[in-house]
């Protein structure tokens, strides 16, 4: 039984290191940092006062004549539309007049839009009855009706980025959004691959978008003590696999890929950048806060993806690690890689681009998959920056501090989400 093959024909991203495919990739290879003091809001008293922000972004620069219709989108949906437009162009789909748009779909790992912070907090404070220490829902409703705005509320729904994209490109095929925390866009790409394989669509725009660099986002992660608090040395604060790592650095952005069934891509003469070979998704089913200590779910996701890809362990030349820079993730991910690769684990090059871009949450996996594809194309593996102090619990080859010239044909990309959601993709150079 031959199954339909799924190839990548276009890529686009909006990241803390840049908005263009090649320039951003060059900054990744050079090991530049996208991390700086937070400017989106005044978080001067927050435990964490820095982030990897997308800089100088104007959706209008990317959307041209479509901007006006979509100008009210949330920050993250703006990233999504821009990245998707870049990917669409990269794939040469602007010229594909004969596209059957009922056979083109969207599968995103899109985050929720930020809450309307100033108006929300105003209503909360004004609606609070200090004497009774309780919310006065009558007063709250009065203020909320006055201050909250229909469009801002509507745009917070996590499926809105995918909905805007459907309209912008006029694509009517299967339209999904998954929000499995930090694993979302890896999951989306895996699911989109399966949708094409089974024949429910011929092409999918897939990836993710997210921005949690807002007061409630930082509050949530600070309360979980998941974020680095190196406010004085923030540029080098993201330190995956380094012994002194103290948490992840919040990033934002979007990564989008055009996935196509092989014959569909060929028949329109598209350039093929890579093939999505395998996908694995599992649940730890362990605890809401902790990863299973043996990396049970991560091991199962990697094994499933490798089996789905039909590749051998020795074929995998590079692992784009989830590598968040939290004590727990990096230790257990290392253990899980050893669990899958055994003696070979020491010979596989591994890195985390989160050391430079920060953690793009729902958008992370898509951007990391794009780095895998570019690494295969150029024979250059991105480094793990800020790796200075070896940790006995993390004793593999993390490509420390300097990109490495190595020809690879197959890469594995991991994304693990809060709540024990594990997703892995295997991508290869396209080969007949």
């Amino acid at each position, binding site marked *: 039984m031959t199954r339909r093959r799924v190839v990548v024909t276009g890529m686009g991203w909006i990241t803390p290191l840049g908005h263009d495919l090649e320039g951003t990739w060059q900054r990744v290879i050079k090991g530049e940092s996208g991390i700086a003091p937070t400017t989106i809001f005044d*978080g*001067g*008293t*927050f435990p964490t006062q820095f982030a990897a922000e997308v800089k100088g972004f104007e959706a209008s620069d990317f959307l041209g004549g479509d901007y006006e219709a979509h100008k009210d989108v949330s920050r993250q949906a703006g990233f999504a539309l821009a990245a998707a437009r870049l990917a669409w162009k990269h794939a040469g789909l602007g010229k594909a007049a004969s596209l059957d748009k*009922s056979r083109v*779909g969207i599968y995103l790992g*899109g985050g929720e839009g930020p809450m309307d912070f100033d108006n929300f*907090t*105003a209503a*909360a*404070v004004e*609606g*609070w009855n*200090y004497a009774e220490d*309780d*919310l006065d*829902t*009558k*007063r709250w409703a*009065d203020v*909320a*009706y006055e201050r*909250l*705005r*229909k469009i801002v*509320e*509507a745009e917070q729904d996590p*499926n*809105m980025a*995918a*909905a805007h994209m*459907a*309209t912008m*490109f006029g*694509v*009517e095929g299967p*339209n*999904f*959004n*998954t*929000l499995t*925390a930090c694993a979302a866009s890896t999951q989306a790409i895996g*699911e989109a691959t399966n949708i094409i394989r089974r024949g*429910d669509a011929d092409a999918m725009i897939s990836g993710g978008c997210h921005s949690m660099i807002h007061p409630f986002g930082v*509050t949530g992660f600070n*309360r*979980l003590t998941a974020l680095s608090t190196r406010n004085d040395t923030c540029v080098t604060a993201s330190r995956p696999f380094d012994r002194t790592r103290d948490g992840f650095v919040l990033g934002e952005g979007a990564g989008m890929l055009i996935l196509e069934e092989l014959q569909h891509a060929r028949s329109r003469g598209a350039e093929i950048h890579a093939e999505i070979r395998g996908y694995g*998704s*599992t*649940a*730890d*089913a*362990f605890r*809401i*806060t902790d990863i299973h200590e043996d990396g049970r779910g991560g091991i199962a996701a990697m094994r499933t993806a490798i089996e789905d890809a039909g590749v051998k362990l020795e074929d995998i030349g590079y692992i784009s690690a989830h590598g968040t820079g939290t004590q727990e993730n990096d230790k257990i991910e290392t253990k899980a890689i050893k669990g899958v690769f055994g003696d070979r684990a020491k010979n596989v090059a591994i890195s985390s681009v989160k050391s430079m871009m920060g953690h793009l949450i729902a958008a992370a996996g898509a951007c990391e998959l794009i780095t895998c594809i570019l690494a295969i194309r150029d024979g250059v593996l991105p480094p793990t920056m800020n790796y200075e102090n070896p940790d006995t619990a993390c004793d593999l080859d993390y490509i420390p501090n300097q990109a490495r010239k190595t020809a690879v044909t197959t890469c594995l990309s991991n994304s693990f*989400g*809060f*709540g*024990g*959601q594990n997703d892995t993709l295997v991508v290869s150079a396209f080969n007949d």
Partner: protein
Amino acid sequence: MTDVRRVVVTGMGVVSPLGTGVSDTFDALVEKRCGIDRIKSFDASHFTSQIAGEIEGYNVKDCVPKGYRKAIKVMARDIELAVIAAYHAVRDAGLRTKCLVDRSEVEGGVDVDSTRFGANIGAGLICADLNELAGALATSAEHPDATGNRGFSLEKWGSDGMTNLTPLWLLKFLPNMLACHVTIVHDCQAPSNTSTCGEASSHLAIGEAFRTISRGAADLCICGGAESKTNPMGLMRQSLLGRLSTDCNDRPAEACRPFDAARTGTVVSEGAGLLILEERERARARGAEIYAEVVGFGAGANASNWLKPQSDGRAVALATSKALADAGVSGDDVDLVNAAGVGTREHDASEAAGIRAALGDRCREVPVIATKGAIGNNGAGSGAIDLAMTIMAMKRGVLPPSINTREVDPDCGLNVVRGDPIDSRADVAVSVATALSGGQSGAIVIRRASE
């Protein structure tokens, strides 16, 4: 392709304003009871719509192992409802999951291979618990000014106000926490996913679970959705979007009128529906009761606007046509339709147009069931409850009426079951759902289990 794995429904768990358990909710629908009432959980008198389908008096503790009870404090209401529905679904399916074994409810050990048991649960944008969040935010208010107004100080919030929130606060509101808690409680380690597409979430989740089992990545999957919109923020958002009935605050049972000529809007609700999908041979081998077979799935998108439904219902039409083709049936084969019918003017008209386009002339005769008049619209959980009710109607041979549909809007042109329940045998049914915001649409075709 040979050796297609067939997928059947072997268990259903429903929590709705009409009751807990799939039979209770279905019986209430047949008895024409209404779960919509004036809002009791908070003072809604300053909202334009003051009615909802609320669920009262449930107990999550009875649905998790004793050792898991402490986790309940980090469950938003949406998560609690999912956990309750999951418990009822696995019991209904006669499975011995980790939860039921830990609770000593079943004899013998776990009879499910965890690595072949997946989850795909639809979730909404989980609303902040305003009592909790506003209470914490209030500690960071400025001193009242001359008019008594207080501003909010981000400076105070960052330095210490935020510590009034529990450390795990964020985890209450991540949409994938529904699946996370359910997979922990029942030990489901196979493919797991969370669909977040408004009212279409359940259908997309169930459709994907169907595909996951078909392609062999799992043998069992717990799937569906859950959401609660019966809180100040959830109600406010729907109110601002202009979707709610506001003329029936004194007659809540008459407020939501799917496809009725005089419909004026929908009503917020809360609830969960989770189904156990199982590979057919596995179900047969263990002698499970088979409710129905899932035979088709289709999805489509509104490519004309992200907030406004299409007048021709094209997204619904596309999803439905694809689902029917996937099932290998034509519109003429369909004996029963389950429509979302939320009760707003434009969404119902759009959905009906889509169904008509997909089913053609068959639409004049085929009975359509709609449940929102009795249970309201909870968002992500509505579709799974609807599908469960459709399966019950098929199994019992009784079609429940849409309680407030008196005169079907000629613009809708569907044969909506109304008045009294109808005895009718259905072999093939299609259930559709569409996201009010976003327009994502899904359709599922089910077939009576062969006897």
